[in-house]
């Protein structure tokens, strides 16, 4: 049996003496008010900022894209300066201390000899004299953006030596320089290609989603057909059509268009499904009843509400383009010399003998992986931020 308490203490009852404000719940703090009043884009930015990895990836990409503008100045050599004495030279280590004394970044010059038995080139560091790396200096002449003549560089090889930070290739060209130049093509090709597929995807997805009916069916079938052909063989076949006589620049645009022509299906699907669901919303019906034209409804009312999603999808589509270009050029059907891209550089690494002897030829794959990873992270962050009201 539970013993009842003989005389139960009354519960302590607290009554606030403050005057009661029935609207206290609805009042918002200044920070909350700022958040509530924030525009959609500002909310997205706040949400995006929380995704640390995405922000970091965005910064990495921003640095890379900015450096693309000043490649000529950043690179220690010009795009195709050859050093016939240093063919397949391994990467030179950058040292800071010589015999215990600090003298700033420097390299040791290479002594070259040919192994007469294996016919292998052997490079040994000449430890006698440190060769100081020069900064903000005059080196190989170049035409900045193909227009301005100049010869200043951020870093130059030491006066009496070479500077192969990542080794040199079969013509004695500095790999580091060529990776920097390759970034110009490899990074921009993704953007241009995505623009092409963005336009196509918006057009076809928009038509299918807005009009529905047989237009929708037609576009859907076309998308299905395109998606059921493996992309790479199709890219290869299309790239093989590009005439050999075309200039490298034309080839570049040809390749971007090929990449975009086949890749629009994903974006078109995204646009279509968004439009299909948004078309039934009240604000859209209202606009239609007021007599707005289809163009106005699509661009004024529907587009803003799914633009953010599209940007996220497009960001996630860029790495596919970059990898596509790399694969095409790697197989020798994409960008052609003298223009360099990371895929063109990797073309040298196709031969397993070359790779076993000169493993630094595989280095251009490092930036490829970094860029693709960064775009994936950035795209993930953007996708999460695209719907900030969730």
């Amino acid at each position, binding site marked *: 049996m539970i013993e009842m308490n003989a005389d139960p203490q009354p519960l302590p009852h607290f009554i606030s003496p403050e005057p009661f404000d029935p609207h206290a719940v609805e009042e918002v703090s200044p920070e909350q008010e700022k958040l509530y009043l924030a525009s959609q884009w500002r909310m997205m930015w706040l949400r995006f900022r929380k995704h640390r990895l995405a922000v970091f990836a965005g910064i990495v990409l921003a640095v890379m894209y900015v450096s693309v503008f000043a490649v000529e100045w950043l690179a220690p050599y010009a795009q195709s300066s050859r050093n016939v004495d240093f063919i397949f030279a391994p990467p030179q280590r950058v040292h800071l201390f010589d015999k215990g004394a600090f003298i700033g970044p420097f390299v040791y010059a290479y002594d070259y000899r040919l192994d007469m038995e294996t016919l292998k080139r052997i490079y040994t560091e000449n430890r006698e004299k440190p060769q100081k790396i020069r900064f903000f200096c005059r080196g190989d002449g170049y035409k900045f953006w193909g227009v301005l003549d100049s010869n200043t560089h951020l870093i130059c090889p030491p006066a009496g030596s070479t500077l192969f930070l990542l080794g040199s290739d079969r013509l004695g060209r500095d790999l580091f320089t060529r990776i920097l130049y390759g970034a110009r093509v490899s990074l921009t090709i993704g953007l241009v290609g995505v623009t092409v597929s963005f336009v196509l995807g918006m057009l076809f997805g928009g038509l299918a989603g807005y009009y529905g009916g047989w237009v929708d069916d037609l576009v859907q079938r076309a998308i299905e*057909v395109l998606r059921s052909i493996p*992309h790479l*063989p199709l890219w290869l*076949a299309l790239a093989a059509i590009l005439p050999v006589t075309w200039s490298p620049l034309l080839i570049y645009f040809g390749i971007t268009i090929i990449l975009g022509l086949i890749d629009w299906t994903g974006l078109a699907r995204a646009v279509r499904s968004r439009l299909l669901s948004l078309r039934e919303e009240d604000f859209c019906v209202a606009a239609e009843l007021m007599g707005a034209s289809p163009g106005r409804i699509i661009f004024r009312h529907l587009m803003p509400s799914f633009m953010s999603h599209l940007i996220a999808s497009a960001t996630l589509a860029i790495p596919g383009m970059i990898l596509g270009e790399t*694969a095409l050029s790697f197989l020798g059907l994409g960008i052609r010399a003298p223009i360099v891209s990371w895929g063109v550089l990797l073309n040298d690494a196709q031969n*397993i003998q070359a790779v*076993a002897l000169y493993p630094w030829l*595989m280095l251009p*794959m490092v930036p490829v992986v970094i860029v693709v990873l960064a775009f994936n992270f950035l795209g993930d962050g953007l996708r999460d931020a695209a719907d900030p009201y969730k």
Partner: protein
Amino acid sequence: MLRYLIQRLFIMIPTLLVISFLVFAIIQAPPGDYLESMVAEMQSRGENVPQDKIDWLRHTYGLDQPFYVQYLQWMFGSWNGLHYEGGGLVFGDLGYSFEHNLPVKEVVGDRLSLTVVVSLASVLFVWLISFPIAVYSATHQYSFFDYLFTFFGYIGLATPSFLLALVLLYFANVWFGTSIGGLVDPQYMDQPWSWGKLVSVLQHMWVPVLVIGLPGTAGMIRRLRANLLDELNKQYVVTGRAKGLPPFRLLMKYPLRLSLNPFIADIGSLLPELISGSVVVSVVMSLPITGPMLLEALRSQDMYLAGSFLMFMAVLTVFGIFVSDIALALLDPRIRFGAGSSR
């Protein structure tokens, strides 16, 4: 079910026809035809041009005809009225390889069947690896191994398979001093199929299958994990747990089954991806499948050889998608009864 099957079959045929037209348009696009350049080359070398053979080729493939006639002859063979004269893709004649001076069928050999074997093995590999990892990651979200797998998944997603192949080749060379390229031991090359050859193929195959399948695996883990997580956060799971259902049984009974849907539906996107990957990987690792020969055919504009390969890959994918659709319909009655169009 039968209705759905027939319906899907009827979608498949026009799809393949459109693809064949596209493929033919692409391989036809380069100016000039191979026969002309071949004749010119042979004449410049002072060789005798077998006129009757050239006439036969020209006639069978209609090289002097307008585009649509050539296409029809390539697809359906040449007809004299109602009398069938030969050729035609639908009758199993893949055309003539000008480069090798042989019918495509003989040039191709067992490359096509090996391609099918490698692709199927890659799909199996993707399933076998990604399924347990994804289930583990989803049920142990934010655990150490979840982060580890996610990290490797991102790396796998960002590393194109041919680069992975290169790296593997390099390390195999450095560590073991051997080359891991190829799909059979040299002694079995061009030999008919035998038990020894089969064993040798199986011994060699794991490397390309691993390399080709890895990017797909990474993507599959990501999708399955996300799907399973969505299901696990639903209220019926909480209810089940609250009622004291054993965790394993609770996982097996509903959430896992529901999240398996994309596992099968994704063959549609997985297969083209795998085949694309296999093209480059096979060039790097010199595998005797379609990749290297397709590349060579495209370079030398050997149109029927290239066309056969492209068509073959497309057929393989379309058929794979067909099978996955059927499997999905078997698994999910919503699709069978036509409500799945909103998927």
